């Protein structure tokens, strides 16, 4: 903490030096200017006429949504089952692929630094691209349907599970690994008996967490044709049947809440 002395000789305590104070001020100023600039770009690209009646549009939307057409829920069980399947099977496929990638990406288990960078590239590419984009691509390749959704979810999960898992692997205790290798165990045996038991709880926790996120993501995959309840949502929105849309929203809300609760319980039990 810098101290300056007044002419009377009494010290004045300050939080920052003058230089740091100025730098901070400049930083805030640049940030604010950047924000205003961005805001201007957005404002230029906006039709403000449409924004002015947003309140009216919003209340109109709500009045069309209420009351929800509850009988429509009967037709939603099959899509909901598809959604759950997309999320669950996608997660399973994703963690099956993420598991080896994580071991290749962790600094202490990778066979070669080059392999490690390749694995990291896979993880980053998978993490950067949203599952909806994967779904769009896969729908043009595989055709619309549940399969495209499952693979999209799996491809997106590799990055998430892989990243968290390789971080967990890098944080393991080296002593059990040393003990196992001291018995003359081979490379795979060291992995199996030294590394794996240490990361298993983290792996299970991460997988359940990702499953919970995937349930949420799989509800919208249908918007681009990849199966699940999103297909119904898309159809309802396109036909402006807002009272059906609200039923779908309620279903999604309930499913996500339940899956979040299950995931929290399971993670609590494991860790």
């Amino acid at each position: 903490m810098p101290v300056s002395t007044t002419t009377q000789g009494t010290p004045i305590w300050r939080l920052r030096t003058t230089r740091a104070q100025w730098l901070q001020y400049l930083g805030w100023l640049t940030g604010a200017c950047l924000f205003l600039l961005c805001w201007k770009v957005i404002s230029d690209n906006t039709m403000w006429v449409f924004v002015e009646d947003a309140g009216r549009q919003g209340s109109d939307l709500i009045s069309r949504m209420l009351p929800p057409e509850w009988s429509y829920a009967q037709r939603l069980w099959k899509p909901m089952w598809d959604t759950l399947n997309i999320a669950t099977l996608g997660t399973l496929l994703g963690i099956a692929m993420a598991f080896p990638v994580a071991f290749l990406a962790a600094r202490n288990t990778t066979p070669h630094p080059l392999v490690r960078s390749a694995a990291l590239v896979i993880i980053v590419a998978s993490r950067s691209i949203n599952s909806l984009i994967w779904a769009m691509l896969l729908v043009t390749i595989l055709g619309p349907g549940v399969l495209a959704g499952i693979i999209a979810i799996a491809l997106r999960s590799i990055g998430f599970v892989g990243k968290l898992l390789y971080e967990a692997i890098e944080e393991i205790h080296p002593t059990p690994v040393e003990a196992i290798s001291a018995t003359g165990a081979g490379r795979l045996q060291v992995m199996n008996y030294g590394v794996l038991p240490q990361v298993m709880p983290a792996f299970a926790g991460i997988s359940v967490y990702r499953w919970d996120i995937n349930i949420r993501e799989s509800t919208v995959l249908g918007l681009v044709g990849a199966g699940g309840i999103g297909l119904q949502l898309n159809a309802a929105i396109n036909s402006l049947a807002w009272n059906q849309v609200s039923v779908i929203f309620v279903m999604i809300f309930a499913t996500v809440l339940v899956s979040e609760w299950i995931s929290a319980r399971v993670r609590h039990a494991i860790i």
Partner: protein
Amino acid sequence: MSRQALARQGMWRRQPMIQDPKLRWGLALGALVYLLLALSTIDVNWARVAEGASRGLNFLTAFAQPDFVSRRGDIIDGILESLTMTLTSTVIGVALAIPVGLGGARNIAPWPIYYLCRSIITVSRTFQEIIIAILFVVMFGFGPLAGMITLAFATIGFMAKLLAEDIEDLDWRQVEAIRATGASWWQTMNHAIQPQVMPRLIGLSMYRLDINFRESAVIGIVGAGGIGATLNTSISRYEYDTSAAILLIIIAIVLLCEYSSSHVRRWTQ
């Protein structure tokens, strides 16, 4: 024979993860039944898959030679729009998430405010950005404003939840110490709570910036501005070389974001 006796004879097996054998086999059986049921409901049109296989191959080869040039104007506009949406929505979202986060922390908020803030958080976290984007596009019209509001709304849920959890975990002695000096509510917030949560708040904001950029790439599909519309068009026109270029740009920007955010986090902690 018990495990110990077997182990003494040199027949060691590791402990199973679930101790109770009935539960273990029950879970395995349940999982198997579910898998069979789930797999049986997937119907794959193999003819269509075979037809699409050549497109899949095209897409993979497109990554080897991405085409940045022929749609350069659209790509630059889209990326710039995505970046502006990302920045403004993160700033606005974080600013709004701070009061909601304070209200959602059980140890400093009274019951009614706690429930209100928690329900805001739940609603914002449950629905995917793209669903919210559809509603906001209907309300505010096509364009980046709807996208910005969507991302800001999603940011509120994410940041407020983590901030509230952080506040619930903080070191309560510092709050007591500040309160003992007769500090008002604002002073307590400013001197006891804010310094404890600030480093994490900055780290999370950087992380959210990164997420918002990734999300801004998809909400364009429903007309909420950003690179998503360009990407969607290029995919549906099978111009995979342009899509590959856009995806590579997205990956590069996300990498850059991640790299700089890890620096910022190291600097704040």
